[in-house]
């Protein structure tokens, strides 16, 4: 199963904690971070930049060749989301968990950058009073830059609210308020297998909001 790969991904993401994810023209920021993790602050390489020197060289080359005075534009992107209460999103829909791991596995296989996240108590909900007035809290959102995929997930999950918004950066889009989540055991359990364990959602949380794995 891809769980171990996903967890590795998660722990790598958590190491990006304090780095800005938007473009910067200042060369010094590119070499931020510890010696063991040679990641870059340029988007599109956040998850890829672990193979070390090769990427570092190309990043340095890119900086050298670009005009330092030229301002790199921030990318204003559209983020699509589905939202419902945390119990529904994280505790009741076991098939949902399977889908997310499947997608993460696929992205890994095809070397694609992750473009979907689970956000617990996202700050962007403040922009949607019509949603929050009919939302049990704590709430969890599935967020993606892939609009059609969110439409598909709405079809699958059904009992969720769907909306979209624009943001300047992934960090801004996925900003959230940390919440401790604990779910009660179900009253009735008819399956000949145990329930999936709590905490499965860690690999899908936005970079920086994951709890560190020892």
């Amino acid at each position, binding site marked *: 199963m891809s769980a171990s790969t996903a967890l590795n991904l998660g722990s790598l993401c958590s190491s990006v904690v304090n780095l800005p994810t938007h473009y910067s023209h200042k060369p010094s920021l590119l070499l931020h971070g510890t010696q063991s993790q040679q990641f870059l602050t340029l988007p599109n390489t956040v998850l890829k930049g672990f193979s070390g020197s090769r990427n570092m060289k190309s990043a340095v080359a890119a900086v050298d060749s670009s005009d330092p005075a030229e301002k790199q534009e921030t990318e204003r992107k559209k983020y699509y989301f589905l939202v419902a209460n945390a119990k529904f999103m994280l505790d009741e829909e076991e*098939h949902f968990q*399977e889908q997310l791991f*499947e997608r993460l596995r696929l992205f890994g296989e095809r070397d694609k950058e992750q473009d979907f996240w689970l956000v617990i108590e996202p700050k962007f909900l403040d922009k949607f009073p019509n949603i929050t007035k009919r939302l049990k809290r704590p709430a969890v959102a599935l967020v993606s830059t892939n609009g059609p*995929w969110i439409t598909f997930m709405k*079809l699958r999950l059904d*009992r969720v609210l769907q909306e979209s918004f624009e943001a300047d950066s992934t960090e801004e889009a996925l900003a959230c308020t940390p919440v401790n989540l604990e779910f009660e055991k179900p009253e009735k359990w*008819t*399956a000949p297998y145990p329930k999936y364990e709590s905490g499965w959602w860690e690999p899908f949380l936005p970079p920086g909001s994951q709890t560190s794995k020892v």
Partner: protein
Amino acid sequence: MSSATTSQAAAEKGSKASTKKGIKETLLTPRFYTTDFDEMTDFEEMEPLFNTDQAEFEALLQEFKTDYNQTHFVRNKEFKEAADKMQGALREIFVEFLERSCTAEFSGFLLYKELGRRLKKTNPVVAEIFSLMSRDEARHAGFLNKGLSDFNLALDLGFLTKARKYTFFKPKFIFYATYLSEKIGYWRYITIYRHLKANPEFQCYPIFKYFENWCQDENRHGDFFSALLKAQPQFLNDWKAKLWSRFFCLSVYVTMYLNDWQRTAFYEGIGLNTKEFDMHVIIETNRTTARIFPAVLDVENPEFKRKLDRMVEINQKILAVGETDDIPLVKNFKRIPLIAALASELLAAYLMKPIESGSVDFAEFEPQLVY
């Protein structure tokens, strides 16, 4: 299914040995479905059938094009090794499981391929989705057929295509029935997978390890039928729709329960309690189906299981009559009261108070819902 009883003969002559015996059809044999393709392609009548909320279909098309399981169905030497270890009754029942599953997947392949072909002009997006679904089913059927070769057998799929009787369904019934069979397929496979993961001592044949990724295909297929139903609100919003929904739920659940009990040795062979397995699958499928069908059965009511168990007993008696040495006329006479009893249980189950359900997209009370 009689096509695999003489394994030695089959090994010598390939699959031709199985065709000589013909195909034993019973009421519960996996069916090949067909539909009124002409009705489905009658442009004026059917074009609106596939024409609403294109966004959902475009999203589905993208999801199917993704092809999550493109590289997943790869065999290894574990298969033949495991098959060689299996002997006697367990071997026979495993072979039957592979056969029935292969036939079911293959019939899905045929139906979807044909629909994909016929709907190209009416709605190319929907047609392409059907073709991609047939890709999935072909993969599943092929993988199962290769599994049969571990037991020195193979289904002659070409022969089956020509020789099987096809059950005819009107298009809207295809939607209800296929939605249910895909979703129930998902729940069956994932339940077996997760049970064996928790109880690996019963993992007697490696094919079950593939079920987790495999069944996601089935789940997605069901989603497509969900979208087709949503594009046709008349299939979801009136009293007739509710009656049909309940009818198809009942047929699918009862067929599975009776079928699985007849093959209880298989489920017990992999460490499951057959009836508990089936009830779990029924309960979960019903819960999933409640997201789209306007009415579903109250399967968690203990009376529902009691009725199912009575149907099992009656069915066992009907089968026992078939095994006696009486002449066919006497057998039929003996069967009549039993069939009447079965019909009575079925009707009573159908008339049990249903659960109102459906997508939030169609719920009149949706503005009051809290998510």
